[in-house]
């Protein structure tokens, strides 16, 4: 079983390394960081930390963009090219296909994100910023865990939607989770009755992506998180990834494949 999952993941990874998207993202991030750096240089001293802040923000959201794209592209791509028929005719279960796709996309996104961090660090060091490495590594690890959750989310959406629709819905869902879910308690304070209960259900029932964001900690030099907290956050991410992959499998396991040119 693991051998088949790994075979699928390997092909996904190879595809990402051989296509141009990943390199376009890296060049775009480097270009943006250099543009921000040149603006910071023009603004004079004291702007280095803001520059690093902007770099981390760009790295964070570029990681998201690649993850949502990678997760949503795989299954619809197989169907559009007809390769899904060759795959599913093999002794490969749909669960193995989904886990293999997720694993391959996560490995590809991990490589991309590490390249993003490398670009950010080069720009930061050249601007004279020396970020705390312990906290930065933890921030990177939690970022990668959040990307695992996002890939599972977009993969689950792509079992029912086409690639573009899955990317669009996943972006909206991810931004809502990141920006709105942490503010639900404030909303709950301003309302009453059954709405408070409904908001509490949403607050505890949806994933909290903001928990994986350690950028403030890195910027303000608060030092690394205790190991237990890091492990709990990693377990939280793993549980959500598992739940979303399960949802993807439930949606995909009885999916009928119809391709006009194949149907008679």
């Amino acid at each position: 079983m693991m051998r088949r999952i790994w075979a699928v993941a390997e092909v996904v990874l190879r595809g990402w390394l051989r296509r141009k998207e990943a390199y376009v993202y890296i060049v775009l991030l480097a270009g943006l960081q250099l543009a921000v750096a040149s603006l910071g240089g023009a603004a004079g001293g004291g702007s280095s930390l803001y520059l690093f802040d902007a770099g981390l923000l760009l790295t964070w959201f570029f990681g998201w963009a690649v993850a949502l794209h990678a997760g949503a592209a795989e299954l619809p791509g197989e169907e559009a090219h007809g390769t899904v028929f060759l795959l599913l005719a093999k002794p490969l279960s749909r669960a193995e296909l989904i886990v293999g796709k997720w694993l391959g996309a996560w490995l590809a996104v991990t490589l991309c994100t590490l390249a993003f961090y490398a670009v950010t660090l080069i720009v930061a060091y050249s601007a004279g910023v020396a970020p705390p490495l312990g906290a930065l590594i933890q921030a990177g690890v939690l970022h990668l865990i959040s990307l695992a959750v996002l890939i599972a989310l977009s993969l689950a959406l792509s079992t029912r939607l086409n690639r573009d629709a899955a990317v669009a819905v996943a972006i909206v869902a991810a931004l809502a989770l990141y920006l709105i879910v942490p503010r639900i308690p404030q909303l709950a304070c301003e309302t009453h009755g059954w709405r408070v209960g409904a908001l509490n259900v949403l607050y505890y029932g949806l994933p909290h992506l903001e928990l994986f964001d350690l950028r403030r900690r890195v910027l303000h030099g608060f030092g690394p998180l205790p190991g237990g907290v890091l492990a709990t956050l990693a377990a939280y991410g793993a549980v959500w990834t598992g739940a979303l992959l399960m949802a993807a499998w439930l949606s995909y396991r009885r999916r009928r494949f119809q391709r006009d040119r194949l149907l008679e």
Partner: protein
Amino acid sequence: MAALSFDNLGMRFRSRGAEVVALDGLTLAVEPGVVFGFLGPNGAGKTTAIHILLGFQQATSGAAYIFGRDVRTPIARQRIGYLCEHPDAYRFLTGREMLRFAGKLCGLAGGRLEDRVAQVLEEVDLSAAADRRIATYSRGMRQRVCLAQALIHDPDLLILDEPTGGLDPLGRQQIRRIIGDWRRRGKTVFFSSHELSEVELVCDQVCILNRGRIVAQGAPQMLPAAGESLEQFFMRTVSGAAEAAGRLA
């Protein structure tokens, strides 16, 4: 034990408010070692039956078996190789990488996998282009690499859906040669085709499907009346069945 069998297979679905009967109580058994032609006009239900056999769709009634195993279990697909109509492969891979991937999915590894990859590349005449990306292959070469991935684990049953569609005469001849080799090795080949002249050349048994039902079955040389070609017999059978269905309606 039959290489593949359909037991009262039914497939109905709704399309734009109307009920479509794709398969209507299809019952068929194909014995091992036979080259079996699965014929029928467009919309007869051939591809639907093949898709159910491969687990791409679930039948609404009845069951399908491969070497006695229910097709709904992935393990049933261990002994089959499949080539779909207008197949495509991962264009960013080389031919050799594509075959390695297919082999790994079928449980091959190490030296055995490498041996099979080399053997199958030779069989489909792609050894010279094995390390080129599939994106650079011609259509015929892509068809052959897809056929090679179906053969990689030396399956006992080969399912081909319109295998020669869009191929030039040379490509068709090559597919016929591979089917012939497969038969000599005692393997079962089940294929759907519109090319009746080809069917006559390679098949031991055929069945003609129309509107989800079998309307004729037997050896391709025995089915037509004296002086009639298989194509004429096919036209007569299919149009006769359509007229009968029209009268019933």
